[in-house]
């Protein structure tokens, strides 16, 4: 077994003993592979909508990679088998290596490089401070690549700007938003997670208040103080409220914010149930009299006895 592996290794080593100048070209190819995997990572990472174009790209790229890898494996395997057969029949032919000779032919066709040994045929009579110049052909692979990029560019401009097959920035954005709206609506239908300022409830369980406290410490404390004593924002521990002190009002203030006073809207950042928890936590601070409290602002609000 080990011998077979070694044989294959040796054989591969022989086949892939490219002239050294090809290696620098392999490196960018690896980077390209990295880029493609990036695209896939992006697809995996976002649970959010992937646009149709992105799907198209992902599918095409994935298929290409899968097919390419399969082809490569098949080709290598069949070549290996052929090689084994050939090896038995005519050892001297095997020495050269069939794949190697095919590769050489391919390389020759793609580079059209005049070998170093025949260099004198193409050396120009230029002599700049001792520097000579050869007059090798333009490498065909390079020329093809140039043509390919030009074709890509023409197609790109045509598809984007002439027939509008791909959307420009603004249309792409609108499509993205629309797609997201549909997905969110579907999600919400499935998961009844729709608390709003009308249905928000007083909760007193330790677990919910603790979650509310967590959110408060990370999101609210900077402006309202760690103990709710106020700072940039108003004191939350007294009975005076600028925008109403009922649970519904507090929920509303947190959800929509009061932009003209600097209270930002949190509905993009907190789930409804989280807003409910933090609003309840804030209510639980009533009458705690923290040190350095900001003087009361706004209207006195007394909670109805039943919910107090």
């Amino acid at each position, binding site marked *: 077994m080990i011998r077979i592996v070694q044989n294959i290794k040796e054989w591969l080593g022989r086949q892939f003993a490219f002239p*050294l*100048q090809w290696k*620098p070209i392999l*490196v*960018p190819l690896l*980077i390209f592979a990295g*880029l493609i995997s990036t*695209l896939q990572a*992006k697809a995996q*990472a*976002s*649970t*959010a909508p992937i646009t149709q*174009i*992105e799907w198209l790209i992902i599918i095409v790229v994935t298929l290409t990679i899968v097919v390419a890898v399969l082809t490569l494996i098949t080709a290598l395997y069949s070549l290996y088998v052929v090689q084994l057969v050939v090896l038995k029949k005519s050892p001297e032919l095997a020495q050269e290596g069939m794949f190697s000779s095919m590769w050489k032919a391919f390389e020759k066709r793609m580079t059209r*490089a005049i070998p*170093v040994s025949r260099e004198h045929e193409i050396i*120009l009579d*230029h002599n*700049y*401070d001792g*520097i*000579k*110049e*050869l007059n*090798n*052909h*333009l*490498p065909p692979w*390079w*020329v093809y*690549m*140039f043509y390919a*990029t030009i074709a*890509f*560019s023409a197609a*790109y*401009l045509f598809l984007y*700007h002439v027939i509008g097959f791909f959307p*420009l*920035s603004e249309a*792409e*954005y609108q499509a*993205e*938003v629309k797609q*997201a709206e549909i*997905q*969110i609506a579907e999600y919400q239908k499935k998961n009844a*997670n729709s608390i709003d300022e009308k249905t928000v409830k007083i909760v007193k369980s330790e677990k919910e208040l603790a979650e509310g406290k967590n959110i408060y410490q990370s999101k609210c404390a*900077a*402006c309202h103080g760690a103990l709710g004593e106020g700072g*940039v924002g108003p004191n939350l521990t007294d009975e005076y409220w600028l925008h109403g002190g009922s649970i519904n009002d507090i929920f509303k203030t947190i959800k929509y914010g009061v*932009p*003209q006073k*600097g209270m*930002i809207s949190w509905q*993009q*950042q907190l*789930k409804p149930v989280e807003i409910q928890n933090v609003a309840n936590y804030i209510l639980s601070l009533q009458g705690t009299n923290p040190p350095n409290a*900001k003087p009361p602002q706004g209207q006195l609000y007394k909670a109805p006895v039943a919910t107090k």
Partner: protein
Amino acid sequence: MKVEQFEYDNQIVRKFIIASVVFGVVGMLVGLIIAIQLFYPALNMDIPYLTFGRIRPLHTNAVIFAFVGNAMFAGIYYSMQRLLKTPLYSRVLSELHFWGWQLIIVAAAITLPLGYTTGHEYAELEWPIDIAITIVWVIFAINFFGTILTRRERHLYVAIWFYISTVVTVAVLHIVNSVELPVFALKSYYVYAGVQDALVQWWYGHNAVAFFLTTSYLGLMYYFMPKAANRPVYSYRLSIIHFWALIFVYIWAGPHHLLYTSLPDWAQSLGTVFSVMLIAPSWGGMINGLLTLRGAWDRVRENPVLKFFVVAITAYGMATFEGPMLSLKNVNALSHYTDWTIAHVHVGGLGWNGFLTFGMFYWLVPRMWNTKLFSIKLANLHFWLGTLGIIFYALPMYTSALVQGLMLKQFTPEGFLQYPNFLETVTQILPLHVFRAVGGALYLAGVFIMVYNLMKTAAQGKFAAFERAEAPALEKVYVPKPNEGWHHVLERLPVTFTILSILAILVGSVLELIPTFLIQSNVPTIASVKPYTPLELEGRDIYIREGCSNCHSQMVRPFRSETERYGEYSKAGEFVYDHPFLWGSKRTGPDLHRLGGKYPDSWHYRHMEDPTSMSPNSIMPTYSWLLEQEYNKEDIKAKITAMRKLGVPYPEGYEDIAPKDMEKQAKKIVENLKADKIKVSENKEIVALIAYMQRLGTDIKVKNDITLNQAK
């Protein structure tokens, strides 16, 4: 044919080499400092002159214009004398060129930390220095073309073609990008505004990379590579095609820095396709460089010079492939504003420019000092430290770019941003920034070893300031050989050659810039967008001075992940009074275009005093001096007048009322702050800065009654 005797000037080359090494060390050291500041902000020691926003431009200017610039002049002056078989045109001009350039660098090193900046990336220097750059560049150009015209070699070698493209294009770029209206001795406003200013800046910025860092270095490669390898250049034909293709295509690619911004879509697309078409022309240089080593690969093992060259050219190949990939819209959507761009430029900068420079110095110094390299072992050590340094720099940065880019785009199934607080994504990548600094430190350590090695080499050798040489004079009448190729004809007509290369770079420039300036529909106007109030304008200048745009963009791109995070995406018409534009190119902190009205004044005050008080774990440095320093109310008169000259519709005579308006608006802010128990007087800089930040991005909001937009 009479053989003439003359002398090559080596002492000017020595001067440029020394300057390059010295400023290289300084520039990279500053780079290391700001890299560390990103995870250890206290390193600025609360000194305004050492904050990231001010010394990041110092780093970029130092490494580009001082380290690479001086190395490039050294290489050009050394090689062109020998390629043209003539001394430099004028010793006086050479000296003026050298000392003028160093003076500019010193001026930059003084003014940038002091906060004198135009706000254009890689062109931060203020107008008097811009003029000095123009003068010195013209001196260089006269000396350069003078040398060509007095040559003893009939034909121009490919290295000279690339030098020509550098000399002419950098001049065009610098002049167009520096059209500023001076306000004070060290303060000016760009005549371009908003979208147009952005396009000019990135046309410049991108082609500074192209023609300052690339074509000049390709020229150097074409001289030093065959010299060091002692092999013929692989393909003359390839040189011709890739030279013309490169300079023609390169100039168009600038808008790829502005994908998904308010730049018109057609310009963005041109940026993308010309970047993609740039792969082959760029790789032409790589092929010719690497294949010149055919038959000499064994020598790479022993020769540190060749080692450096091989890695330099490989890095060039990688960066010029990566660039076009980053110009694809869907890749750019993720990569832009993240560390990916930083990684990309450092593969180019550390790999291509750095390593080619080091290889060149290791080759030049022993020759010029008539000795052998002091230690090949140390050079090899430098090589490995540098190579590892590049890898340790780039890999963490690619990782952090992916991590942050993906986090910023991540939504929960409920439709919320998974990481609504930008800071969460920053704290996540800080460990990677530590690795990056380690990579940078390795690279710098290698440079120190080189300095030692080169000094030892120089000490053991004997420097000859002038080197005797001889060559036959050019005959007055040239009889061309039969069937001389058309390009070979061109190579003996330097003036025609130069004109053609100017034309090649003007086509793309004109076709992109002119329509953006002239066609109205490119920047649709928005009626509610009004000029800044005097106080806001003053605040904006403070924002520019502190280099805020080095870390904060002002450009919300049309992605759901950005509009959810920041608000409505940015529109071209919103920037029409922005001289200069402040879109930024990297988000170390969040975008600020929709900052206005988001937080109360007191939040900003406290945040500037100590960012961590409002955003725990923030890596933004403190700006406590803004709370102490006072702005000058009288300055606003000149600023308003200048802005009016640039087309901002302040009424005639408004400059006299402006100080009063300033006071009025400042009073309001002071009152707001007072309500939150903050005492501050009206004329502190923080008040002006708050006014500006509260204005940002508010003009298009329908409800325009937010705190601070009462300007009259």
